[in-house]
């Protein structure tokens, strides 16, 4: 594979389609600028600031755009809120659509057949693969990302975090809790 990729890169750069240094810069940007830390800051802010939370649920692209310290986000971001009665979970059955700016590049399991095939038919079974179980009466809402809209799950704020700063709260927000295949960390639990 490596030789085949190198050959293609040679062909394309010899034809003058891109500067090889521009590829290095793209890779570096993915490695350093994007990642779940961006989503975690947004979630922590929503847990701390009711007006921001409402703005996020109304128009997530616009709300996130007001936060200077989070990487620039594109259009069509939608935040969906978990409540005691409803749990949200995001999938892309057709390919691998995922909110890159908020969560970074998707993990292999998100892009692989087991998750893509089962999430829409047996979400409780998929959650069990992650060691997650929900009360039997909780509604499970699966969002299949079939267009250019991108979904970010706003998990429930863990109990026992009253008075915590946004920075402290952000430490509890896991990537999977923003996909809907996990929960935030529990305060004080061994990590």
């Amino acid at each position, binding site marked *: 594979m490596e030789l085949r990729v190198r050959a*293609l890169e040679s062909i394309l750069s010899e*034809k003058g389609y891109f500067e090889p240094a521009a590829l290095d810069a793209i*890779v570096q940007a993915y490695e350093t600028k994007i990642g779940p830390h961006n989503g975690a800051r947004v979630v922590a802010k929503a847990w701390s600031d009711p007006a921001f939370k409402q703005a996020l649920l109304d128009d997530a692209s616009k709300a996130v755009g007001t936060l200077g310290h989070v990487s620039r986000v594109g259009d069509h971001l939608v935040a969906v809120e978990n409540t005691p009665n409803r749990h949200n979970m995001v999938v892309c059955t057709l390919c691998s659509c995922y909110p890159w700016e908020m969560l970074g590049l998707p993990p292999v399991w998100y892009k692989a057949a087991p998750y893509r095939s089962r999430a829409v038919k047996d979400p409780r079974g998929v959650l069990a693969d992650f060691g997650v179980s929900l009360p039997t*009466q909780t509604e499970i809402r699966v969002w299949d990302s079939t267009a250019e809209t991108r979904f970010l799950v706003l998990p429930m704020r863990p109990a026992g975090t009253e008075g915590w700063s946004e920075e402290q709260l952000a430490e509890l927000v896991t990537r999977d809790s923003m996909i809907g295949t996990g929960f935030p960390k529990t305060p004080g639990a061994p990590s």
Partner: protein
Amino acid sequence: MNGVHDMGGMDGFGKVEPEPNEPMFHQEWESRVLAMVRAMGAAGAFNIDASRFYRESLPPHVYLSSSYYKKWLLGLEDLLLARGYVAPEDVAAGHAVAPAKSLKHGKFSVADVERVMVRGKFGRTAPAAAKFKPGERVRAKNIHPATHTRLPRYVRGHVGVVERDHGCHVFPDTAANDAGEHPQWLYTVVFDGRELWGPDTDPTIKVSIDAFEPYLEPA
């Protein structure tokens, strides 16, 4: 197209296996493939819909047995050959032999990198009023386009409820074939799990897709 990429509801793929502390790339070449796809797309060789269509068009056994970035590489090679950005003699030589084809947005340079790190804009001015409103019942049409579509098979023929209206967006079904953007209204449509998977399904399950207006009819 009714390809193996349209996986919603298929059985037999086994358990989901999360990898603890997963690295961003498992091998260095994966990062080069990602960067080449992003660069060639931004330079105007293809749009996101065409790149998806070429990955979906890989032979089913290849699609199912290839890693994610291998699919990206194979789809990229096929697309660049089909559109004349690469010639068969280039591939045979492993170097550029044939003349280059000009790119719509010119050579991709370091200065363009910041631009590709923000998602493109897919919203467009509405050419007509929306046919459906939140709260209305709609049926996903029983259609089977042979080319690219974003209407998954598992909802076709089933009735759901319009929940959100996202405005007008580029229509992937035409954009993928270089046949124009033809903006269409886009809606989140919610289906009850029992409507999709039968009466024995867990009644707490609801599944939504984002559906372009031509995928829907009143129900």
